[in-house]
């Protein structure tokens, strides 16, 4: 909860008419400003925020640092776009405004939205940065919009001159489907060096993502900390139990795997070809699993991308999983733990249970799981049979 006075420098130059950040660059900026003001005020009620524009006829302070959100929102209304951005003057005026803040105990921070080309020399910017550092003012730069020669370089140089112990940040936001404010939410500008504003940012991020929570268990730790904690603890306990069980299974499976090495390569290819239909969540899961296990083996990577069209049907899924497990286990002993984990039936079944659309009680699933427990060679014969069948199914 750092006590802070912030000055936000808005770029209202001609370049802001562009619509590559929907609805227009200027509107995206305005939304971001509103979000920042909210976050700052929420993290500490005594924080103040002020706004100034850098383009137009000249640098103009719209509102001096205040904790009144209404004033800030009101001043953003009816702003005109035009002219060229004057970054140096903007930062210097912001510094002056901060110097005359009412509460001298507040830390000074400037947030700059740099959306148009920077016409100043790198040296000038570095000198400004040094001056800011000398007066212990921290600077956050949001680099978006135009990206002409040297702009990024100049802004990075400015940041390097100001930066004192990583208190200043720069974020580069390319144009894309995501709104400017949404991208900003995940940056250190919002998370405030890991403290304070993260609560606001986290809940705003959850809302903005439209219900898809980015949190570990689908529960916002801020909304329901006890539930989140309970879930986390139980997951860790389960993992520990799985690992202990997996180690036992690994001893058995390693013997089996050595026997079936040569056939594994061809089997995996066929299996991954056969497994062509699935929903995306399973794909990503499989891919991630496989990739994390297959890092040392480059040949596996091709199979991994094929596996992105993974199985809709449960047996194919379990099959592919299991085969890639065998392959990687042979390739690197260091990956043994992971493969042991996967070789462990109970762990696999718990994974399958967590995947949507997969019912562990489904007889076909049970069949496959049972088959995993048996010896590798008969298993592979089964696979051989299944793989051509799957190709036929296509």
């Amino acid at each position: 909860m750092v006590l802070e006075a912030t000055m936000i420098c808005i770029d209202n130059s001609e370049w802001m008419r562009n619509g590559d950040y929907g609805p227009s660059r200027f509107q995206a900026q305005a939304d971001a400003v509103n979000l920042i003001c909210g976050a700052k005020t929420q993290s500490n009620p005594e924080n103040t925020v002020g706004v100034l524009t850098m383009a137009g006829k000249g640098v103009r302070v719209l509102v001096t640092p205040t904790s009144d959100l209404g004033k800030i929102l009101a001043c953003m209304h009816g702003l005109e776009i035009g002219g060229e951005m004057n970054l140096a003057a903007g930062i210097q005026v912001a510094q002056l405004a901060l110097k005359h803040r009412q509460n001298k105990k507040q830390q000074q921070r400037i947030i700059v939205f740099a959306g148009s080309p920077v016409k100043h020399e790198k040296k000038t910017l570095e000198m400004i940065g040094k001056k800011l550092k000398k007066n212990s003012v921290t600077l956050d730069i949001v680099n978006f919009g135009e990206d002409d020669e040297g702009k990024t370089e100049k802004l990075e140089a400015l940041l390097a001159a100001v930066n004192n112990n990583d208190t200043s940040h720069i974020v580069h936001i390319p144009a894309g489907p995501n709104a400017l404010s949404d991208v900003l939410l995940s940056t250190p500008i919002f998370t405030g060096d890991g403290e304070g504003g993260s609560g606001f940012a986290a809940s705003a991020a959850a809302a903005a993502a439209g219900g898809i929570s980015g949190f570990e268990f689908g529960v916002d730790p801020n909304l329901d900390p006890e539930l989140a904690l309970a879930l986390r603890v139980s997951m860790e306990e389960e993992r520990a139990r799985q690992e202990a069980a997996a180690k036992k299974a690994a001893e058995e499976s390693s013997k089996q795997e050595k026997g079936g090495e040569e056939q594994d390569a061809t089997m995996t290819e066929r299996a991954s070809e056969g497994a062509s239909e699935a929903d995306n969540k399973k794909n990503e899961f499989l891919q991630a699993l496989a990739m994390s296990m297959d890092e040392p083996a480059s040949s596996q990577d091709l199979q991994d991308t094929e596996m992105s069209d993974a199985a809709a049907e449960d047996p194919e899924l379990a099959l592919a999983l299991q085969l890639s497990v065998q392959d990687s286990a042979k390739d690197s002993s260091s990956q043994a733990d992971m493969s042991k984990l996967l070789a462990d039936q109970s762990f696999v079944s718990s994974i399958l249970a967590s995947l949507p659309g997969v019912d562990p009680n489904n007889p076909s699933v049970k069949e496959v799981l049972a088959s995993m427990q048996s010896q590798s060679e008969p298993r592979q014969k089964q696979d051989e049979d299944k793989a051509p069948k799957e190709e036929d199914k296509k």
Partner: protein
Amino acid sequence: MSAAESATAIHRNQVDLLDFIDWSGVECLNQSSSHPLPNALKQGYREDEGLNLESDADEQLLIYIPFTQVIKLHSFVVMGSEEDGPKTVKLFANREHMGFSNVSDFPPSDTVVLSQDNLKGKPVIVKYVKFQNVRSLTIFIEDNQSGLEITKVQKIALYGSTVETTDMKGLKKIEDH
């Protein structure tokens, strides 16, 4: 240190104002984060020659020291090395929250150019009349001895007396006739 000792011996009424510094309000602009102000100011740290206060972006330093009570400043000691110890030091009494931009806005209460003797520990006696009623002291170190990029200060000590306290030892019992 004998020079310092004899100096304090001469001005017997003056005490080290370390005890009256309000540490919660002490600030230093342009200090390096790995070599902050307490290295030069705090008891124990300032005696350690390995611990210095160093400047960061350039050679200037602006130190703000508020006191817990009103004091009179008599003299001060600034110790540093020959090349990168401070040279020109300006003192401002009772100016809150100064910045580098307004150091030249008003005249300092006192300006001192430190000599090599001073840097070894010889106290500098200030214009006492200007420091009779000091609530806070701002020390502006403008440059260093050899014009280097970074100024290093090993020790800062302030000597003076407090205003409100009565010297109990000075009170003598009035003898009855």
